């Protein structure tokens, strides 16, 4: 199988800020490859290098086996890019935008309609509406349609689900999985860790460095400590108290509980009395299977130290 993206030792700085620090990875055909990381981790910079919009300071980026600096023209023909910011023409209609991008890539909407029909059918009733007047979810579908209209071999989506409601987010990932059938490789970035499980492969990125690359399941299994959950009605106070407890290794809020790990992987005898002394009387403690987010937080924490 051929690698669609082959990144070797990419460095990029803006002034004194090291945006990307030794980034190497490869993406296989028809894969959904996710970059997970907080804001400012370097995801957008990396994507701009892959889409030939930015030149790396060092290292070599190959897309479809072609060099991103020398053969950028070849790469651009076969890439669909959806920037993080909505960047279609707001003063053109839905239809005009789609036709525009089809023409610019030397194709027509009709030619590749089957590829986008799943997505575009949602917004087709509004095809005469100006893109600027669409709702967030619809804008996102239009942007995806426009990025797909020339049947690209690689789809690059920069934080497509940021600022989109939970239902639309889930819908969006369904659409991406369906695209795999068409042999389209998808590179996607997101700050939401829960979306990692939807990818075939994920890379965890922080401060310009990749902390881990693997399938989501294997990354999750890298979590070897025993995980405990603690619940209380006063969650914020609980979190602070847990972090003060001497045996606590990590404590992170997760939904309605706090995920905690301890030295020696067991709850110390003094734990309950410590909580009560600090004013938490209704703590409920349990054990839990670690999710991928737990592993991410662990990796990021270790990296900070």
């Amino acid at each position, binding site marked *: 199988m051929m690698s669609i993206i082959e990144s070797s030792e990419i460095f990029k700085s803006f002034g004194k800020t090291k945006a990307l620090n030794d980034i190497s990875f490869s993406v296989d055909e028809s894969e959904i490859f996710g970059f997970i990381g907080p804001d400012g981790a370097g995801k957008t910079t990396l994507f701009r290098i892959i889409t030939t*919009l*930015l030149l790396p300071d060092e290292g070599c980026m190959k897309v479809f086996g072609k060099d991103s600096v020398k053969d950028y023209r070849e790469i651009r023909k076969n*890439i669909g890019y959806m920037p993080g910011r909505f*960047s*279609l023409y*707001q003063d053109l209609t839905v239809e005009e935008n789609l036709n525009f991008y089809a023409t*610019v*890539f*030397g194709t027509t909407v009709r030619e590749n309609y089957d590829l986008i029909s799943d997505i575009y059918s949602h917004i087709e009733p509004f095809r005469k509406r100006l893109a600027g007047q669409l709702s967030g979810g619809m804008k996102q579908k239009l942007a995806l349609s426009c990025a797909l209209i020339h049947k690209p071999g690689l789809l690059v989506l920069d934080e497509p689900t940021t600022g989109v409601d939970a239902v639309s987010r889930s819908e969006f990932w369904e659409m991406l999985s369906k695209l795999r059938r068409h042999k389209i490789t998808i590179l996607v970035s997101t700050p939401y860790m829960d979306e990692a499980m939807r990818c075939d492969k994920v890379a965890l990125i922080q401060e310009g460095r990749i902390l881990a690359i693997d399938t989501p399941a294997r990354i999750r299994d890298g979590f070897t400590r025993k995980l405990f959950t603690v619940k209380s009605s006063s969650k914020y106070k609980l979190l602070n108290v847990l972090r003060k407890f001497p045996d606590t290794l990590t404590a992170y809020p997760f939904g309605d509980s706090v995920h905690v790990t301890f030295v020696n992987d067991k709850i110390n005898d003094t734990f309950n009395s410590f909580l009560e002394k600090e004013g938490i009387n209704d703590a409920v403690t349990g054990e839990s299977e670690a999710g991928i987010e737990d592993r991410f937080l662990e990796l990021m924490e270790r990296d900070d130290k």
Partner: protein
Amino acid sequence: MRTILYLIRKEFIQIFRNKFISKAIFAVPIVQMLLLVPAITFELKDVRLAIIDKDMTPESRGLISKLEGSSFFKVTFSTFSEKEAENLLLRNKNGVILHIPSGFGKDLITGNGGKLMVSVDAINASSAQLSWAYLNGVIRDYNAGLITENIGVASLSPLPRITITNRYWYNEELNYKYYMLPGILVILVTAIGFLLAGLNMVREKEIGTIEQINVTPVRKYHFIIAKMVPFLLIGLVDLALGLVIGKLAFNIPFEGSILLMFFGATLFLIAVLGLAVFISTFSGTQQQYMFVAFFCMIVFILMSGIFTPYDSMPQWAQDFNLINPVAYLMRINRMVMLKGSTIYDISTELLSLAVIAVCFTTLAVRRYRKTA
């Protein structure tokens, strides 16, 4: 080619969908022509004159009535106090003070020759010189009249005199509207070329749409041509509109070939649009662009010779004007409209504009980066 046409179509859709711009494109030339052409004039009329008549003789009154009768002057104030008259000058209430000392009439009659004093507000040097020249003319006239009156025509010895007959070519009545209108048309086209296309380009950057275009196979010269062509056409349409208004409202003469003038304007617009796109490649925001473009525009327009005679500028300014497209179009418009100059007469200007157009556009295409 199909891509360029489609890109141009897209620009037009966007321009005409913008409710404000689509109207302003046509309103601006109308307003500009109707407002500026009659307003900008160097003709001097009704110069406000203050008179200090300390003589109060028939002679001094004769001079005053002569001045009152002239269309150049309006006697707005008479006083005996120099201080008061000077105050008026200071407060911009009057432009000229004519001081007639006592004894003026008596000196005239006794043949000693009268003495007058004139003070002119010279904040504006050219209007000061004109006022003085007009006033001088009226006084000379009066003087000649006095001589005839006192000595009689017959007794004048027939001294040989040089008679000069003059004629102002191309603008016989020295009508400033004829002089200014071609210049105002240039300003009009300059504004369209400089501001609209560049701002449009920077706006794509600001909104981020350029990011997605850059990842497409669209070639940069496609993109730049597509940005220039719509505004080139709009510029030409506005020029036509301006000419029609000039004909209807001011009955401006048009001696030369309209086609030739539009050819010159096309070269000019390409040059200006090229420069505008070039500036836009440096600018990240519309504000930055506006500041630089406005500065360039003012320099180009003021140095172009629209108000001041081209040939009387210092040498360095004339040298600068070698790369000033506005200066060339200013000359082309005036020459073609008023003189009826042919393509041979303005070939230097046309050729220079063509060179500038090629240079600026090349610079723009080279400077424009699809990759950071």
